[in-house]
């Protein structure tokens, strides 16, 4: 990681964050409270961001089809809630179910993406966008039986927001919290995050992982050295999808609700923006970059809310978020293609 250099977007984002912290401090807001929340937010969104790495490294680009993996995770959680599994055990079962769903969905997704090699990003956007209305049918028609998940009266199918209050709300957030003064460190949550990161690190140290990186760097060279391109890409895409499924489980236990229907769409672009802010350019990406990017972006999200409220235009938060999100993605597209052209 010694070769890591700060790039313009990180400098701008860091300065912006610093400005926000100064503003918050001058408005006498609770900075330690923000710090505690920022750690939770890091992991809450961080697993989804980590899920992008295998696909980036295998050369399949930014995974705009993130909703595919998210849906797998949602199915897993719905199944766990349907069987009324609670606590850490319930969360574990939700992960296990989503693992199964994501393996299947990831395999199908991989088959499609292997057909559109080189154009995964644009295809991914529309695969994601068309998969969501298809899943809306599933949420409406699947025979779930737990009354707490269904529309209370009238209506048909699952609620858009299923409360996890009685199931596995905050199970990771509240696991092994160490309190030092006012600072709270959620060790269980961080340990889960670290576990995923270590898994990714170890994966890229295996033969399959090294093959994935080789394919991402130079496909024709990798083919000549006898690597099965299709199979390597498939492994990376399935792993990406599985981690995305875990990511939404972590997100939901922290948020307190399973959000169905069109919600998965709103998570894709912020996750991609986060990894780009961390220094990725849409190609080979380090785990460190994903962590840094998520932390910077989520802290900004966190701080803009009270500040925008203080100056009486609450919509400003959302506008700033979207401007940063799409701005950084556009920047990455421009930078990456220019580098590609020089080669």
């Amino acid at each position, binding site marked *: 990681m010694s070769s890591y250099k700060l790039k313009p977007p990180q400098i701008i984002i860091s300065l912006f964050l610093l400005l926000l912290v100064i503003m918050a401090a001058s408005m006498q807001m609770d900075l330690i409270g923000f710090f505690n929340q920022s750690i939770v937010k890091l992991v809450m969104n961080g697993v989804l961001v980590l899920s992008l790495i295998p696909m980036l490294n295998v050369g399949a680009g930014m995974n*705009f089809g993130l909703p595919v993996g998210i849906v797998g995770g949602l199915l897993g959680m719905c199944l766990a809630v349907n069987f009324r599994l609670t606590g850490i055990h319930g969360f574990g079962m939700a992960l296990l179910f989503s693992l199964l769903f994501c393996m299947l969905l990831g395999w199908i997704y991989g088959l*499609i993406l292997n*057909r*559109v*090699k*080189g*154009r995964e*990003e*644009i*295809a991914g*956007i*529309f*695969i994601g*966008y*068309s998969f*969501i*209305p*298809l899943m*809306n*049918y599933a949420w*409406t028609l699947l025979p779930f039986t737990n009354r707490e998940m269904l529309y209370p009266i009238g209506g*048909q199918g699952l609620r858009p927001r299923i409360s996890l209050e009685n199931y596995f709300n905050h199970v990771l957030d509240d696991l092994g919290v160490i309190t030092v003064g006012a600072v709270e460190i959620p060790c269980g949550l961080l340990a889960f995050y670290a576990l995923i990161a270590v898994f990714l690190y170890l994966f890229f140290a295996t033969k399959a992982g090294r093959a994935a990186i080789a394919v991402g760097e130079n496909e024709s060279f990798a083919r000549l050295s006898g690597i099965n391109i299709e199979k390597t890409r498939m492994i990376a895409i399935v792993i990406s999808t599985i981690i995305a499924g875990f990511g939404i489980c972590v997100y939901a236990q922290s948020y307190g609700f399973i959000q169905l229907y069109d919600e998965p769409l709103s998570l894709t*672009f912020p996750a991609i923006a986060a990894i780009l802010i961390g220094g990725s350019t849409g190609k080979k990406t380090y785990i460190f970059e994903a962590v840094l990017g998520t932390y910077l972006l989520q802290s900004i999200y966190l701080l803009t809310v009270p500040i925008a409220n203080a100056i*009486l*235009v609450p*919509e*400003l938060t959302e*506008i700033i978020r*979207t*401007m940063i999100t*799409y*701005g950084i*993605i*556009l920047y990455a*597209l*421009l930078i990456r*293609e*220019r580098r590609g*052209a020089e080669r």
Partner: protein
Amino acid sequence: MKPGFGKQAFNSEYVVPIVFLALSLLAWQWSGLSGSFVFNQVINRFIRDGILVLSLVIPVVAGMGLNFAITVGAMSMQTAVLIMIAYRVSGVTGILLATVLGVVLAVILGYVIGVILNRVQGKEMITTIIIGFLFNSVYQLIFLVGFGSVIPVLNEEIILTRGIGVRNTVDLGMYRNTLDKLWLIKIGDLEIPLFMILVVLMFAAAIYYILHTRFGQQVKAIGSNTQTSEVLGINTLAVRIKVIILSTVLAALGQLAYLQNIGMFDVYTAHLTNDVISCAALLAGGATIKQAKIRHALLGVFLFHTLFIVSPQAGQNLFHNAALGEYFRSFVAYGTIALALIINIRTEKQYKKA
């Protein structure tokens, strides 16, 4: 024409419209809506969305794929209309001034988009999507935060009660259907707004003409092979910028037709799904991301919107749940584009290998 490419074009040019026709007819049967109601609605959609769909044709011919940044053209026109309302310029002067201002904005923004797209050749579509989203946040910043705070506004009626930001909906009562009612022909229950139909057809003719000028020949040359056309001495980058400017301006004019047809102006949402719906309509008419003709656009609007109009009612009758029809609509819109991309990219590769 490239060899081996004709077969693919033959396939989707006829298969896709036939599938849409069959689906529309089935859904229409299930919906139980009367033929004249559906006909009037479709004609209404045709004069509402026709120009927007036509604005997509030239970028496809230039090999730049579907231009999802037509939302930027739409936002230029909306900005112009809002400025006219904010400073109380009404009547014919208002419409004309708004048109001029909207077109000027569209030219400037189209130029910017063109320059950006020249740096991302081969990834134009994904870039236009992101550009559309980014401009949308800038647009929101201007009207939700800027208007009433930094920018003074004469017309207090359109401002939120807190004094900052434009309301979600602005009434366009004075402009509503002014053009649609010109030369309105009634045959029994059927209503035919002849003037606006002619306007849409005139735009179609204009684009047909442009594609057959010297400029149009250059656009086609770039679309079939960029390298060869550069060797032939065509300034590829300049032509590509002109293509996007043209598309953005057409989209701006299309949005004007759209707004006057609806008559209520949803300031923050009116432009949002226009790109996807227009692209899906173009593809439904038999176009691909490599090939588009005027007739694809015109036919596509009819086919796509027939399905769009009847599917919620069909969902209601089949499943007793109108939401299912809505999901079907979104699925058809996005699914059409996804399928077109997957099929096209694959055939593109097979062609390269051959």
